[in-house]
């Protein structure tokens, strides 16, 4: 192996290791500034139909005759497909009118809040999907042989849970305004979100003031651990394994990993804390039934990730009590109590619901780079 080839290998490895940083998935506000509203008229040169974000490259001719190529950034292929759009909705040569916030860094990128094909005056690539229609008359909760509610599929058709009614966290009764990524409308509201310790409030404010740009889930493809798995737009799938007394929770977003919930009556013993060799993004979860509710106690989280959208801090002292119930066939109720004496002054609770998406597998979505 020559010095040159070693250098090239190192270059390739370095680039590969840098790839997660370049992974372009992000909260919209982390990259685009709503105060920099931009309107563009141009001709499509390419549609890059890839996760985590689709890009429509567009030539824009300025008044002085110069042509600039802009990247119009859109949601993921998964969300766009659910709304009925495809890679060929627009084709090179199509004229479009784009409206949205421009990139904070001044580069020629704009978030495609509105994209209109000018030939037909039709709005395209807008996300309209609100999930499956829930029957007017609730269907009964499916139950297993033991009479307990099934949290997963009750037939071979399969299915998963998605479309959470909330994708953010705040303590019950807080009623603080924030967007779907957990970005506060007013940073001054931060102290109301949770009972923070002073350092945790300072760190939360810092993350908010930076528009969530430091989210390791997006920058480094870290897992949507702890609560966040139930906030992703790509859902979760419960696979119940009664023979081995455990439940697998497959994660639709991020890196297609999974969490195990033990239901064999075991205690929180053994290694209950993650480390470099065994990073526990999902902690160690044990469960029992209280009536029709599965109560899951989880400890042992590492500190390498954000446990919820919005950047609320946590420490390795985090423990969760999650309560899962299925009041009817199409509804999963999720309630969680956060107890982290390392970051909060008291336990606090919140909850939301998810919808059943029957007859489908989890959508394929990987954290990946599409900026190259």
């Amino acid at each position, binding site marked *: 192996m020559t010095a*040159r080839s070693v250098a090239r290998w190192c270059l390739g490895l370095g680039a590969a290791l*840098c790839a997660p940083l370049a992974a372009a998935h992000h909260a919209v506000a982390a990259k685009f500034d709503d105060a920099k509203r931009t309107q563009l008229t141009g001709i499509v040169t390419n549609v890059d139909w890839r996760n985590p974000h689709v890009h429509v490259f567009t030539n824009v001719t300025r008044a002085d005759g110069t042509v600039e190529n802009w990247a119009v950034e859109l949601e993921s292929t998964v969300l766009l497909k659910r709304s009925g759009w495809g890679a060929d909705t627009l084709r090179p040569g199509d004229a479009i009118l784009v409206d949205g916030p421009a990139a904070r860094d001044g580069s020629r990128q704009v978030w495609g809040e509105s994209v209109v094909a000018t030939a037909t005056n039709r709005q395209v690539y807008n996300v309209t999907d609100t999930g499956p229609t829930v029957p007017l008359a609730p269907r009964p909760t499916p139950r297993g042989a033991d009479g307990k509610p099934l949290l997963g599929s009750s037939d071979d058709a399969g299915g998963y849970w998605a479309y959470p009614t909330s994708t953010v966290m705040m303590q019950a009764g807080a009623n603080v305004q924030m967007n779907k990524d957990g970005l506060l409308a007013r940073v001054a509201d931060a102290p109301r979100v949770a009972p923070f310790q002073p350092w945790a409030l300072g760190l939360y404010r810092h993350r908010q003031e930076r528009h969530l740009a430091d989210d390791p889930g997006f920058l480094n493809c870290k897992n949507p651990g702890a609560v966040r798995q139930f906030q992703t737009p790509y859902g979760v799938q419960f696979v119940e394994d009664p023979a081995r007394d455990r439940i697998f929770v497959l994660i639709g977003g991020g890196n297609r990993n999974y969490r195990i919930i033990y239901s064999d009556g075991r205690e929180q013993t053994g290694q209950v804390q993650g480390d470099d060799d065994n990073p526990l993004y999902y902690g160690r979860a044990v469960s029992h039934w209280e009536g029709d509710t599965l109560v899951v106690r989880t400890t042992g989280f590492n500190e390498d990730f954000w446990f919820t959208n919005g950047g609320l801090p946590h420490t390795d002292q985090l423990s969760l009590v999650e309560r899962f119930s299925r009041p009817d066939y199409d509804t999963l109720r999720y309630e969680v109590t956060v107890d982290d004496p*390392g970051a909060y002054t008291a336990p606090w609770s919140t909850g939301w619901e998810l919808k059943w998406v029957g007859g489908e597998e989890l959508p394929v979505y990987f954290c990946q780079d599409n900026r190259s």
Partner: protein
Amino acid sequence: MKRLMTTAVAMLALGVLLSSGAQEGHPLKGSWLGEWEGNSVHGDNILLILDWDGKAITGMINPGTDNMPLGRASLEPNGWVVRLEAEGKDKDGSAVRYVIEGKLENLELPNRSINGTWSSNKGRGTFTASRQ
């Protein structure tokens, strides 16, 4: 060729740095390597091990045979001001009482840093350390 090698090594180092585990919990938790410039008693180099138990910042300066456990330690989120106190001994066995004061910078990065000053009954100087 030299430029290619330099670029390659820089990319590799950057890649390793960026792919290393982040630490998103208490901002001071971790290992910190740095310098307390002009310290004739304990040398210019310093290794700090800091932890957070939910109530107090604990830790050690220069773990080993000449280590100094931290006494009082604080982090003020308003301005991210760090203050660390420790007591060691010089070669003659006399007490050396250290106070490190600095500002936590690049809070969002795994390799965030503390920049400020150190002082003791034996001297004073500038202090810098970055999280490893």
